[in-house]
């Protein structure tokens, strides 16, 4: 039985209508942001420029796509329907009557559903890894910039050591199936995931050490929540079985954090060295505040502008790194729907079929573009102040 096709125009309409939960959510959020933009500080100012609106729009689009992936995608991203092998966009799957909107790949899976589900993987790992990299970079960069001297020399040397590695070599060494038999990824995860707990504990301790009522609550929350997530992520021993991460995902996660935290470290260090010469830092020193109080409550809030911009760019960069990992088939499972793996699979067959290659490439490019536009307009807005 030959496969039936729908016309190109219907494909476009169908794609647009499949994204309906995203459009509704976008409409609500963007509308609300527009209405209250005066009250939303920096985020509200983004809506003053076209570039900012486009950036926020693209990022939110992919965020909602990841959230509503299950209702957007018509098929299971891993399901194979043999007669749909390599079909062109718009082919109708005879059993369910649903359409392979962007065609089928060489294993007869729906390219559209895979693209939609791929956004989930990217939007979970990239921001989370960036968050951890920020924590590591900030916690180490603050003392390096503030104290200078030996601690700075040692930490900068280590950061430069990691930065001197070509990223791809680092990944080939750190993300191999063999390394999961050794304790190295778990050891590294154990160290990296400790940083957020240390960061928040010190943050609350320095601020509230004279107000035990507040301090004990905040410290308790930090230690319990942090310890719980720590147990789940590093040892996979979450007593409630909620926090769980696959060993190979943990491996990727650790490698990405490892590769991008020295960059954050350098930026934070530079910012601190600049800010610590300001008058309000001198005032705090004269008041007799502890060094960590000055770092966390005087310097860090004043470094937030460049850090937020850097975080946006870094999420984009992490997305590119994840794609690179997928492209070289490192870490992620071979059938995983993430964009890098999909690009790898499709680019091998470009001579015969081009349709499986385009959706993941355009998805990845547009998401990174959205983040870069967002970062650019954030930078412009924060420079205006």
């Amino acid at each position, binding site marked *: 039985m030959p496969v039936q096709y729908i016309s190109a125009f219907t494909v476009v309409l169908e794609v647009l209508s499949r994204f309906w939960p995203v459009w509704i959510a976008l409409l609500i959020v963007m509308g609300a942001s527009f209405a209250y933009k005066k009250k939303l500080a920096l985020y509200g100012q983004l809506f003053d420029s076209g570039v900012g609106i486009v950036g926020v729009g693209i990022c939110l689009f992919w965020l909602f796509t990841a959230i509503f992936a299950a209702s957007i995608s018509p098929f299971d991203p891993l399901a194979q329907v043999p007669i749909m092998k390599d079909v062109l966009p718009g082919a109708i799957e005879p059993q369910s009557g649903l359409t392979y909107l962007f065609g089928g790949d060489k294993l007869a899976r729906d390219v559209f559903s895979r693209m939609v589900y791929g956004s989930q993987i990217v939007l979970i790992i990239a921001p989370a890894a960036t968050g951890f990299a920020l924590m590591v970079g900030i916690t180490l960069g603050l003392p390096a910039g503030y104290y200078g001297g030996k601690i700075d020399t040692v930490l900068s040397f280590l950061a430069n050591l990691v930065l001197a590695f070509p990223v*791809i070599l680092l990944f080939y060494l750190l993300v191999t199936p063999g390394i999961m038999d*050794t304790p190295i990824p778990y050891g590294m995860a154990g160290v990296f995931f400790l940083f957020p707990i240390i960061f928040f504990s010190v943050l609350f301790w320095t601020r509230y050490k004279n107000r035990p009522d507040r301090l004990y609550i905040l410290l308790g929350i930090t230690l319990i929540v942090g310890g719980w997530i720590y147990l789940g992520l590093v040892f996979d021993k979450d007593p409630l079985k909620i926090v769980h991460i696959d060993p190979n995902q943990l491996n990727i996660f650790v490698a990405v954090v490892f590769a991008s935290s020295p960059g954050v470290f350098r930026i934070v260090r530079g910012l601190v060295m600049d800010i610590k010469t300001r008058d309000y830092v001198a005032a705090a020193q004269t008041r007799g505040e502890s060094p960590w109080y000055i770092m966390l409550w005087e310097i860090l809030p004043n470094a937030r502008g460049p850090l937020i911009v850097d975080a946006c760019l870094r999420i984009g960069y992490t997305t590119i790194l994840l794609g690179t990992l997928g492209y070289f088939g490192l870490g992620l499972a071979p059938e995983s729907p993430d964009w890098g793996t999909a690009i790898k699979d499709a680019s091998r067959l470009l001579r015969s079929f081009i349709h499986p290659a385009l959706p993941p490439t355009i998805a990845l490019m547009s998401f990174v573009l959205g983040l870069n536009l967002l970062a650019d307009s954030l930078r412009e807005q924060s420079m205006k102040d």
Partner: protein
Amino acid sequence: MLSFVIRRLGTMALTMLCLTIIVFFLINLDPNLKKLAISQTEMHTSAEQLESWLAEHGYRQNFFVRYGQWLGVMPKQPVTDPATGKPVQRFSFCNDPVVPTFSGVLQGDFGCSTKFKTAVASKLFPALSATGILMFWVLAVMVPISLLIGILAGMREGSRTDRVLSVASIASTATPEYVSGVIFTVIFASWLGWLNGSAASASQGITFYNFTLPVMTLAIYGIGYIARMTRASMVEVMTQQYIRTARLKGLSFGSVVVKHALRNALIAPFTVIMLQFPWLLTGVVIVEVMFRYQGFGYTLVEAAGNNDIDLLLGCSLVSVFIVLITQLISDVGYAFLNPRIRVQ
């Protein structure tokens, strides 16, 4: 200046030493050695045979002894043939010594590639020269285009040209090589048929037909970044007092840009271009794999995929060396180009 360079060279040597130890440690993890043994012996070998292969070829010696041998501060031992009891070459395909000799990286011996069955040097250096050709063309395309875009955009901040070019450069930084490579191949090779989607034939002779796509793909990611840095630097220079003075003196806008602004605006991009090399190195790996061009990146992937210990160490040494030396050149060059820093 001289003491600065010497100190930097010292740090560089220390960094390379640390990095090679880390790489050496990671490639010699037990699972990786097992993988190597499996790929080097016949199919269906038992665990004991794998173990004896590893021991016979000297992989079970002390870690530091082996690192010292690789580095050339410890003598390389020949292996003993179990049948005759005489010392034989460790790997017959690359003239290993039969008497203990100091033969490591410091003596110029990069070791033996188990994947390509040849000496590392005879595989690595042709690959490097192939990549050098690629890099040359990439830089020849990337640098002029990105500087031009940056200068045009930064010349009049906030103008329509500026905004269009800025968005274009942001878009190009959002396009990693594996994305632009696929898109360019689809457009220029599949639809238009103008260019070849594979650069495998470029090893025999470079033509416009087989070499344009890899060069374009590799250049596009860097263009946006350098252009943005050039723009930022140009914008800053254009607000300086001396530019206003030159304008008020009655010089035309074009001659102010070319004679006064350009020289000062190009100092920062020089540093940025130099620091692009580590990024280009990753790009080279992707592009060479994608377009099947047998250069350094291709060799690195083959070495890593097959756990070819000596070849991978050679590759990492070369890439780390490139990264560090470009950092050094960028620092020294910056001081050289900028008289204000040179004096200090």
